[in-house]
Structure formats: structure tokens, C-alpha cells
């Protein structure tokens, strides 16, 4: 493909791609911009793009209402915790499925995935009762547990597809070299699958971060993450567009920034083994 493409074509593509990219990004951009407006400007017609009096008032207002940092902290702990534990459980399972498959491996995998399809509200009351009896309500531990469980199938599946890409010969070589199973996984498999593991991790952090049902329903204050933070803004109080935007910006900023910084890893690993 090293034939020259005409500059005109390249420019056309550039323009179209940028327009589409900006269009997709626009809602986020608009939210961020609005968060710096006053309530009046937020609903002004015609809307002003950047030529308005920038103000941080909305952020102070939001922070005054609820301690943002507590929620962020919880979000981080829960998203990271559930993902790490999930990986810890999933890596051996995926290893087994990828390198010692049986006839039933596929079925087990599909069964795991199908557990994700069950509507969470259907089991809310049972879980609530269990959590109440075990004292897990409004605890990070409890949430980490639940999120681990709901993301585990995806983690196992993604890892499985990555692992299958790794030639079994390398693991056999390690075995010949005298590595025990644990060492084989720690020294050979995990480092080799690192891009895949990183991408799985990132994807699951995102999913856990954005999980709204369980995080909202199983917490009150101690363990409440950003989804609960934003729940205080999900209906307007008169003119509230700017405040809503500020809260929204705060809720998505950490994960967006993390996502942007790690997008290379995310994308690199998103090449599910199955995709290639």
C-alpha cells in the first residue's frame, strides 16, 4: 500500500474524520463547556460556544453539596479492587481453558457469559438480604465482591482469547525448563499476555467504574462511588444545566483521563484473540 495517495484525498479524509470525531465527542465537550457557564448562559439561545464568562462557581456549588473526593476515592477502590481480584481468579481459570481444554470448555465459557445476561433487578432483593445478614451493606468489600462477580465472565473470556494466542510450546518449554505451574504462570504466561491483561484490566475498570445499579443500590454513604454522587443530580431543580454539567464532568473526568492515557494499551489488547 505504499502507493502515494493524493494530497486532496488525504485532506478530504482528514476533514471528514475530524468532523465525525468532533461530532461524537461533542456531547462531552458541550458538557464540559456548559459546566463553566452560569445557569443563565447555559440555556441561552443562541448558545455560546466559548465566548462567555467562564466561572468555576458550579464546581464550588457541587463540592459544597457533596464531598466529591470521598466518592472518587470509593470509585477508585471499588473499580480497581474488583478488577484485580477478578484477574486473580480469572487468570488460572483462563489458563486452564486455553491450555488444557476439554470438550466442555466452550460450554463452561458460554455458561459463564450467560450469567451476565441476568437482569440485576431480578436478584436485587435476595442480594440485599444476603448483604444485610452478612453486614456487607454499604461496604466497599461488598461492592468489590459483587462487581468482581459480574465482571468475572468477561475477564475470563477475554483472557481466554488472549491466552489461546500464546503458543502452547512456550509453556511446554518452561515446563521442560523445570518451572512449576505457579512459576510457569508468573514468569512466562503473565508477562507474555501482559498487553491482553492490561487491556482486560482497563476495560473492566471502565465497566466497574460505570456500573450504576449495584453501586447505587447497595451503598448509602460510606462506600458510595461516583454513580451515587451523580444520582443526586439526575433530576433538575429549576435551572440546573450548568450544575449538572459540572457534576457530570467531575464524574467522568477521572475515567476519561485514565482512558485517554491508556488508550494505546486498551486498543492494543482489544484485539481479542478472536478478532484476529
Amino acid at each position, binding site marked *: 500500500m505504499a502507493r502515494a495517495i493524493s494530497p486532496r484525498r488525504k485532506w478530504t479524509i482528514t476533514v471528514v474524520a475530524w468532523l465525525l470525531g468532533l461530532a461524537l465527542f461533542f456531547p462531552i465537550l458541550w458538557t464540559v463547556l456548559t459546566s463553566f457557564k452560569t445557569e443563565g448562559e447555559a440555556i441561552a439561545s443562541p448558545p455560546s460556544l466559548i465566548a462567555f464568562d467562564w466561572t468555576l462557581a458550579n464546581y464550588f456549588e457541587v463540592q459544597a453539596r457533596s464531598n466529591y473526593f470521598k466518592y472518587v476515592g470509593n470509585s477508585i477502590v471499588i473499580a480497581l479492587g474488583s478488577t484485580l481480584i477478578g484477574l486473580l481468579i480469572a487468570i488460572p481459570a483462563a489458563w486452564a481453558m486455553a491450555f488444557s481444554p476439554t470438550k466442555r470448555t466452550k460450554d463452561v465459557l458460554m455458561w459463564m457469559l450467560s450469567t451476565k445476561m441476568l437482569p440485576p433487578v431480578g436478584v436485587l432483593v435476595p442480594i440485599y438480604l444476603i448483604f444485610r445478614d452478612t453486614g456487607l451493606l454499604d461496604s466497599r468489600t461488598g461492592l468489590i465482591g459483587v462487581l468482581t462477580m459480574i465482571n468475572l465472565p468477561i475477564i475470563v473470556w477475554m483472557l481466554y482469547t488472549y491466552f489461546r494466542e500464546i*503458543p502452547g510450546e*512456550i509453556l511446554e518449554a518452561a*515446563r521442560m525448563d*523445570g518451572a512449576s505451574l505457579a512459576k510457569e504462570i508468573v*514468569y512466562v504466561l503473565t508477562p507474555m499476555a*501482559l498487553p491482553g491483561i492490561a487491556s482486560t484490566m482497563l476495560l473492566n475498570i471502565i465497566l466497574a467504574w460505570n456500573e450504576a445499579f449495584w453501586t447505587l443500590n447497595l451503598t448509602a454513604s460510606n462506600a458510595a462511588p461516583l454513580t451515587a454522587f451523580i444520582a443526586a443530580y439526575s433530576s433538575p431543580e429549576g435551572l440546573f444545566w450548568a450544575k449538572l454539567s459540572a457534576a457530570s464532568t467531575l464524574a467522568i473526568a477521572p475515567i476519561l483521563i485514565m482512558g485517554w492515557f491508556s488508550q494505546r494499551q486498551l486498543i492494543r489488547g482489544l484485539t481479542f484473540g478472536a478478532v484476529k
Partner: protein
Amino acid sequence: MGKITLDKVSKSFGQTSVIPQIDLTIEDGEFVVFVGPSGCGKSTLLRLIAGLEDTTRGTISIDGQDVTGAPPAKRGLSMVFQSYALYPHMSVRQNIAFPLKMANEDKAVIAKKVEEAARILNLTDYLERRPGQLSGGQRQRVAIGRAIVRQPKAFLFDEPLSNLDAALRGTMRLEISELHQSLGTTMVYVTHDQVEAMTMADKIVVLQAGRVEQVGSPLELYRSPRNLFVAGFIGAPKMNLIDGTGARKHNAATIGIRPEHIRLSSDGGEWTGKVGVTEHLGADTLLHVAVDGVGQVTVRADGEYQVRSGDTVRLTPDPDKLHRFNADGETF
């Protein structure tokens, strides 16, 4: 130390029996090559010895000790894989050091042994590189380095050179032979390359469908193949196998004559044929000749033999080098 004995070993995958039953002894210090067509069970046999597969029946012993149930790590063997199976995330040094690290060797000892292995294999300058930054031949050497560093009882090679190009293959072939000479360790080597088998082996084991067809030194097999299969399999270019009338004249169901054992002349001679494709290799010329009443015969002529497609030539097989086979394909 490294005598490997297979006693009535058989292997099935589910219903399919891949190796019906094999008895084989590999002496200490021997260079044994397994050859055979694709799918005949060469790799399986090697993996059984390595302990990467369980035997279905039979026992494998190393130096008289039964290791049938032992895990690979406990057998004291090293293996070099066709794909090299290097650890891509480790440097060459770490790759070579890995088996020692697994054996919990002392750091200083590891360093010394790795340097030593690297020196032998001319890898000293590349120790800090990753496998991805090496050429094919260098990677192969790293794989060998990883194998020799722990001084195993025997080396197992599964088509180690098949991913290299012809020139490199030649060089590596020599290197492995030299390594064998200098280390004196038992080597079991799987290949389907003629030249490798012929030039490297002390003993060739010809396999077909999981059975041993013949065991012997390269020249033994070249000179006296026990049956049609071995005759056709050993030697390049392939032995001409002739049945029908041509064979009946020699009182055999089939006769075989190698291309290099046929004399060319412009008149006289036993057979008359028309030249088809000619391949000029410089040092030799290969003529593909359609012989009346016999079929396609390949002849090798020394040097540059000038002949054109369509020319008629006379051929005389060297009677001393003629192989005769009965209806079952056995030599007699």
C-alpha cells in the same frame, strides 16, 4: 549419561492410536534422528520421551530409571522446539538463565554458565537483546543455549531448523553437529529433511504411521534399505522405483535404482528414453527421462550435462546398486 529406553510404548489420542507399539533404545551419547512422513508420530514420540504427553501403555526409562510417570521437569532432558519457543519478554540472557533460575541456582553460578553457553554459541554480543530483535539463526542458537545451559542428560530437538532458510540451515546443521561432538550428550532429533538426517545422525529411526520401519546408520539405510518405504524415503533425489516389466526382468516385484547410480550414454545401454525437464544445478544436472516400458526415471549427471528436452538418451543402471523388492515391498 543419557541412555533412553522405550519399552512397549504405545500412545492413543482418544480412539486413534498414533503409536501402536514401539521398542527403542537410544544409547548414551548417540545422535539419533527420527524421520518419517508428516503425521507419522515423530513429534508425539519425542513428546512422550520429554514427558509432555502421557504414555498410554509401556514404560520409558532414562539411565535405567523408570520415568514414565515423572513430570517433564524431573526427567533432566532439554528440548528445542520448532518454533524456538523463546520467552519474548525476556532478554537473551534471561532466556538462557531461565532453567537455572527455576532450579534455584546461585546467581553467580547462573551468570557464569550463561556466559559460557553464550560463548559457545557466539551469542555474547546479543545477550541483552530480546528474541524479537534477533535473526532466525540467532534465535535458534538462543533456544539451543537454553537447552545446553543446564547440562541435561539428553537433548530433544523437534525440527529445529525447519523455519530457517536454506543457507542458514546448512550453517546451523554444522553447528549442532559440532556441539554434539564437543558435548558428547545424547541427542534425539526429529526432522523430515533428508540432508539433516543423513549428515547429522549416528543412527536414523525411520517411522511410518507410528511404527519403526528401520533403524540404522545413515549409510546403512542409504545402501541397504530394508523395504520400499525406506528406500523411497532416504536419499535425494529420490530413488527411482520401477515395477512391471522393467522389474520382472530382475526377478523382483519392484526394483529401485538411485539417480546417481545410472550411467548415461548416447548409445548402448539398457534403457532408452526421451529427456523431459532438465535441471542444471551447476555441479550436477538432473535429467527427468521418460523411459519406454519403465516410466519416469530421474538421472543425475555430474557437472554440466548438455542435453535438450526431447533428446533421446540411453541409460544403464549400475547392477551393483540395484535394489530388489518382493511383492510385500521387502528387500531380498
